[in-house]
């Protein structure tokens, strides 16, 4: 098992954000987490990656307890992440965005006197190509189109050669065509590189088209987990989240 989350609890003051959540992701598996806004999905990711501390429970990555590790150590272990709000380096070019992540992955960040400009450029270009941004290498991150920025996020996460990718709403704000492209991209990346993938999504087409397993969250708790067909038919899930989408999801 690649990632195991056991009985996770987190509250902010009086508000219980995550309540007794259990989650498992295997290598080569695509898992999606769905639920209404405020269900605690992003908080769950933040707890796994060490951005916020948890109250109770444990997180295991490849059987290693990573519960109280700081984010920079967790990411060095092989967990890559993209964020809900665009989280790139706006005044650096796409090339530099990916390059700086590669510096960290190869231990070059500490190098004080070598020239950074063309270092590792083949690897950077490879990654940019795999996320479809090869022709935007020289564009400043902040000037990219929204969909391209989202893909750059994935590129940055890939630079660390992760075994597990956590993507928080990877198709948010994208057009239908961009969404289809990105869905195909993350499916291909996961299956071809054997990367375990867990992603949060609101677009049910994306969720049902590539997920091996779906977790449903509501008000901080995991209310259901199962294969896409099981999720579609579950009454509680329909009531809480899918609702009218049941018909359109059944058609896709």
């Amino acid at each position, binding site marked *: 098992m690649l990632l195991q989350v056991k009985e996770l609890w987190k509250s902010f003051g009086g508000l219980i954000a995550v309540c007794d959540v259990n989650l498992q992701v295997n290598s080569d598996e695509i898992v999606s987490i769905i639920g209404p806004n405020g269900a605690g999905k992003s908080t769950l990711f933040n707890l796994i*990656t060490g*951005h916020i501390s948890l109250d109770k429970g444990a997180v295991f990555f490849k059987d290693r307890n990573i519960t109280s590790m*700081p*984010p*920079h*150590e967790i*990411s*060095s272990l092989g967990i890559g*992440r993209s*964020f809900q709000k665009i*989280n*790139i*380096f*706006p*005044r*650096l070019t796409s090339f*530099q*965005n990916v*390059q*700086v*992540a590669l*510096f*960290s*992955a190869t231990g*070059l*960040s*500490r*190098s*004080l*006197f*070598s*020239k*950074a*400009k*063309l*270092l590792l*450029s*083949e690897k950077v*270009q490879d990654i940019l190509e795999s996320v479809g941004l090869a022709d935007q290498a020289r564009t400043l991150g902040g000037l990219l189109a929204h969909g391209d920025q989202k893909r750059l996020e994935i590129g*940055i996460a890939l*630079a*660390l050669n992760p075994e597990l990718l956590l993507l928080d709403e990877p198709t948010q704000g994208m057009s239908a065509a961009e969404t289809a492209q990105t869905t195909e991209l993350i499916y291909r990346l996961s299956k071809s590189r054997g990367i375990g993938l867990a992603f949060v999504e609101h677009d049910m087409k994306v969720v049902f088209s590539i997920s091996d397993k779906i977790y449903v969250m509501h008000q901080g708790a995991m209310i259901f987990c199962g294969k896409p067909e099981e999720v579609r038919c579950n009454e509680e899930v329909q009531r809480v989240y899918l609702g009218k989408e049941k018909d359109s999801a059944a058609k896709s």
Partner: protein
Amino acid sequence: MEEIKDKLELLRGRIPRAILFAIFCAFMIALPALIGKSWLNITVEMLIMALAACSLNLMLGYTGMVSFGPAGLYAVGAYTTGILLAKLGTGIVPAMIAAPIMAAIVGWGVGWICVRRTQVYFALLTLAFAQIIWTIIFEWYPVTGGDDGLVSIPTPDFFFSITNSYYFCLVLVASCIYAIWRIVNSPFGGTLQAIRENPGRVEFIGVNVKRYQLAAFVLSSLFLGVAGSLYCVFSGSAFPDYAHWTKSTDMLVICLLGGIYNFSGPIVGTAVYTILIKTISKHTMQWNLILGVIVVLLVLLMRNGVVGFLSQKLSRHR
């Protein structure tokens, strides 16, 4: 193949800049023959201030850390050299080598505490520590001379000639600025810039952000120590003023004026600031007021400083 193509393209863009740079170097080398002694004096002060500003900008423009205390480390450098020369009678070489080492050590201690906090709190902590350094200098009369300062510091006869002092400063400042240039263009420098852009994201590419911020602080302190030491030798004195927050704000204004996102920004800013002060103060007693107004106008109209403004204009015409 791609790498060779990229390198050729870089060279093509570099040739006009290389020519300009060569002309600038020739100008700086020939300067003592071109200008009078008083302007040469001012140029030496500008060189030293340019180094201090570049050192500060390593933190400010490249890592996004706004420090209100660079003068503190500058003064540590100045006083280390001054005390070694005046009170302990050491030679000039050990006195000048000890300065950046001492500044780096103090910078490490101060920086370790300051990077525990971010943004405004970081800035306030740096200001507080600079004031602590000022107070220590001011009160520790037996060692630092208190508010009398250290005067008539014995320096080798070599420095009696302003031309010698100029070339000495030019070589040392140029070497240090070159070292800073190599640092900001290294993978380490790239990581610092990423930290400036988005420290939270950098945590999640496996980088211990606080450690890198501390490293930037220490490196910045080291070069500030060199600048302070140089000024002590050049002026033959050291005063508590060197650590005062007004000196820190001078350095900050210089960086902002020139442009913090360009390497040459602090250097151009130093030239503009110094020339403005010297020219305005010749014409009026209220030069501080006029300078203030001009600086406010420049900062409002040129959002990325003089160099930033010029490079935007130039890239539009290309």
